[in-house]
């Protein structure tokens, strides 16, 4: 008896979450994660590559059943689609070039945006250093929301880019003084540029930083969302999720569900 395959879409260009081999094969943290989820939830699936433009429209139109592409849960997105439980909640921080000598206070600490007092203190300290400087960020991300909400009115110029990697490119070219991105993303960048660049400032979580990344399903497809969430929960419970995180990121960016 044949079971219907679930179709997942991903971009295949976002290391180390999802990447493509020259022969078109997809691999990465999210692919491994999905394999495990499928095993536990007991479904057949295939993954197709799809450009980011049109990714969600395709989902809404039913060209595929779910999207797994490091998508962060936000209120606005919830109006259009539904999410599973989150599988990463790594914070966000800043990257700078070493030669500029710029350094932010609070490196290595965590700041929870739900804790208003702590947030204000941390932001004030950063703003002092960044005033008059330009910070780049990937457009319409949680990091962009953060910058707009906390730093835009404190003399920091914010410049938004259509893709993540371009932020680093301009950082290296000297057009930006700092870039902001998720810790996972920045660590991938630093892997190649450890000589010249570094991460700095505290790691922000909670609040506008959202509730982490999750698998996206069509609005109202609770059945699938629940199935995926249950599998993720069991992976979190038995430590598989943490193991995968360590394997791909060298640190734990996954939540305790």
């Amino acid at each position, binding site marked *: 008896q044949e079971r219907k395959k679930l179709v997942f879409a991903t971009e295949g*260009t976002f290391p180390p979450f999802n990447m493509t081999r020259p022969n078109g094969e997809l691999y990465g943290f999210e692919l491994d994660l999905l394999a495990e989820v499928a095993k536990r939830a007991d479904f057949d699936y295939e993954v197709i590559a799809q*450009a980011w433009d049109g990714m969600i429209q*395709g989902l809404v139109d039913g060209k595929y059943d779910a999207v797994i592409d490091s998508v962060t849960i936000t209120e606005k997105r919830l109006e259009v689609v539904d999410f599973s439980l989150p599988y990463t909640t790594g914070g966000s921080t800043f990257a700078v070039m070493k030669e500029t000598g710029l350094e932010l206070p609070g490196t290595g600490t965590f700041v929870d945006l739900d804790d208003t007092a702590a947030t204000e203190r941390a932001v004030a300290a950063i703003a002092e250093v960044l005033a008059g400087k330009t910070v780049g960020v990937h457009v319409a991300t949680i990091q962009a929301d953060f910058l707009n909400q906390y730093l835009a009115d404190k003399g920091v110029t914010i410049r938004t880019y259509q893709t993540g990697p371009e932020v680093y490119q301009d950082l290296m070219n000297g057009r930006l003084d700092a870039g902001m991105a998720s810790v996972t993303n920045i660590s991938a960048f630093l892997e*190649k540029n450890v000589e010249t660049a570094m991460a700095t400032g505290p790691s922000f979580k909670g609040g506008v930083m959202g509730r982490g990344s999750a698998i996206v399903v069509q609005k109202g497809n609770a059945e699938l969302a629940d199935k995926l969430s249950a599998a993720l929960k069991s992976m979190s419970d038995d430590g598989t999720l943490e193991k995968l995180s360590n394997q791909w990121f060298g640190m734990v960016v996954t939540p305790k569900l």
Partner: protein
Amino acid sequence: MGDLALLGFGPDGWGLALLRAGLLTLAVSVAAFLCGLVLGTGIAWARIAGNWPLRKLAEAYTVIFRGVPDILVIYLFYFGGRQVVTAIGTALGLPGPFDISGFLAGMLAIGLISSANQSEVLRGAYQAVPKGTIEAGRVVGMTRITLFRRVIAPQAMVTAIPGMGNQWQSVIKESALVSVTGLVETMRQVSVAAGTTQEHFLFYAAGAVIYLIITTLSDQVFRLAEKRSLRGHAGGGI
């Protein structure tokens, strides 16, 4: 610059993938351009020789397909096309499910955009044909078709070919937009490779080279056509 081995044909090289993507770019472009040429000729003809409603219709078509950003046309074809096809299929009582392939949607979308542009190029070229030579064709009793085929088209070529060359180039580059439909053409392959390896420049440069190769080859075709079209021509130039 990154590691050139990444562009090779080994198991870790992207050479083969890029080659395949290049061929797909070529295939989509050729199909779209020809589709645009056929439609564009018709539209130009309607605008020049059609009656009032036909002319206005052709004008509206041109305005819309030239004016709406290409990406949206592709969106509408890819996402809307499926609904249309399904509706038609269901109405005909055919068993589903229905879908429109990415290739077909992309080709049609780019072809339609291009047809609007090509019709303008052709219309301009038609107007540059000396009226006397058209009259000379009419007085020998040529039908519209013969007149077009034997007198107007060969002369209009002279002005049209550079403009059509432009259109062909645009089509090649617009073909990059069909990646939203899931087709892995050059631009998509380049961004996949660049994203995965984090070697942006290497792969964008490689992409530029692929486009230049396609251009060079197709330019030869246009150059040849141009040479042919110029036979006997004693036009200006600076």
